[in-house]
């Protein structure tokens, strides 16, 4: 087990993290500890997930999404050891406006790390032009790609383009075929991290919280011993284990959304202003070569 932080860093994080939880999954069994209880290791790969920054949103649920995204980036910049890179799992912007993309890019520079992006549906309101212009280089199709880091194979999927009436979103046959080809040369012991925007499991289909062809896509990964799927979209932390696949949805840095089915619709949830930062956050993920499990730490912006 590792959380990728040294003792001092851990204590420092513990001081601001409050309700932060460390998650590790070993042999298909997820376990959690309070941040301060975890023993620490420094070697291995650590990266950070940031999600649903919604730059441009300014309604009562969070009138200042720039400030909360900046607070998240400041937390990331303070991490020790420094994460290898960031992944942003979409809804960078609220309305796909050029100035929203540019503001988000300016803020995230503060993390002083490479960022790998996937789009959310809010980043595709202009048909994907703004996103592709800034992040499309070197990607396939509507922006999917893969890369290797620290012995882990990362697959970035796009599931915010193929929406059909009355249905869930889908990845589409082309992306699934590419994915199959992408992993064909990998050994089954290679840990796989898939990241995308909308959940790859049926969290709550009535609200569109799922991907129609996710089973087909993940079928391509059936032979791998460790598959971790990270996503955003639903602005809250949920986990699920299915065989060797673990699914984790992440907090937003902008505003929370209701738990599945607890409201008439999944609109922004208003919490008292002094509680807002306790329902926003980031995620740190650590992997040590030779260990099966990835350690996942979800950290709130305040207690």
């Amino acid at each position, binding site marked *: 087990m590792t959380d990728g932080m040294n003792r001092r860093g851990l204590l420092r994080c513990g001081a601001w993290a409050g309700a932060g939880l460390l998650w590790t999954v070993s042999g298909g069994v997820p376990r959690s500890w309070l941040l301060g209880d975890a023993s620490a290791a420094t070697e291995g790969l650590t990266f950070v997930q940031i999600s649903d920054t919604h730059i441009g*949103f300014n*309604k009562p*649920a969070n009138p200042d999404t720039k400030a909360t995204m900046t607070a998240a980036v400041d937390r990331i910049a303070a991490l020790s050891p420094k994460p290898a890179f960031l992944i942003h799992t979409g809804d960078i912007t*609220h*309305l*796909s406006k050029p100035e929203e993309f540019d503001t988000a890019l300016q803020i995230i520079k503060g993390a002083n790390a490479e960022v790998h992006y996937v789009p959310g*549906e*809010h980043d595709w*309101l*202009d048909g994907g032009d703004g996103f592709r212009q800034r992040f499309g280089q070197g990607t396939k199709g509507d922006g999917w790609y893969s890369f290797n880091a620290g012995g882990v194979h990362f697959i970035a999927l796009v599931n915010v383009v193929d*929406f*059909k*009436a*009355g*249905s*869930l*979103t889908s990845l589409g046959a082309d992306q699934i075929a590419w994915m199959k080809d992408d992993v064909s040369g990998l050994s089954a012991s290679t840990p796989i991290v898939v990241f995308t925007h909308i959940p790859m499991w049926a969290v709550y289909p*009535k*609200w*569109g919280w799922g991907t129609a062809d996710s089973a087909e896509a993940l079928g391509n990964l059936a032979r791998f011993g460790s598959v971790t799927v990270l996503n955003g979209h639903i602005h809250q932390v949920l986990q699920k284990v299915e065989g060797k696949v673990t699914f984790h949805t992440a907090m937003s840095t902008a505003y929370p959304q209701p738990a599945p089915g607890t409201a*008439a*619709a*999944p*609109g*922004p949830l208003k919490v008292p202003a002094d509680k807002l930062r306790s329902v926003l956050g980031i995620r740190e993920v650590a992997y040590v070569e030779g260990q099966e499990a990835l350690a996942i730490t979800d950290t709130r912006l305040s207690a």
Partner: protein
Amino acid sequence: MRLRYVALLALLGFGLLIRLGGGLSAAETKEVQIDNYSFTPGTLTVPVGTTVTWTNHDETPHTVVSADNPRSFKSSGLDTDDKFSVTFTKPGSYSYLCTVHPYMTGKIVVK
């Protein structure tokens, strides 16, 4: 005498305008509200020539996009209080959806 005649004409004219205005709004424009991730009314039947206007009351952006292929109409992302209008000039059944939340669907029937 002359003054009274002018006043009468003015009154008549005013009445005509009111009737004309009322007739226009009843026959040629209709509203669809977007509230809590749904279109209301879900199905709207209108005569040919009607302009339908959608208004987004949610804090979340929505779109109004024809489900036909090729699409017969398509809004951009509608922020809170944004409106989008389409004038339907041909009879038919026009299904549409919010492409951001595809479980949100509606239909305009033009007769």
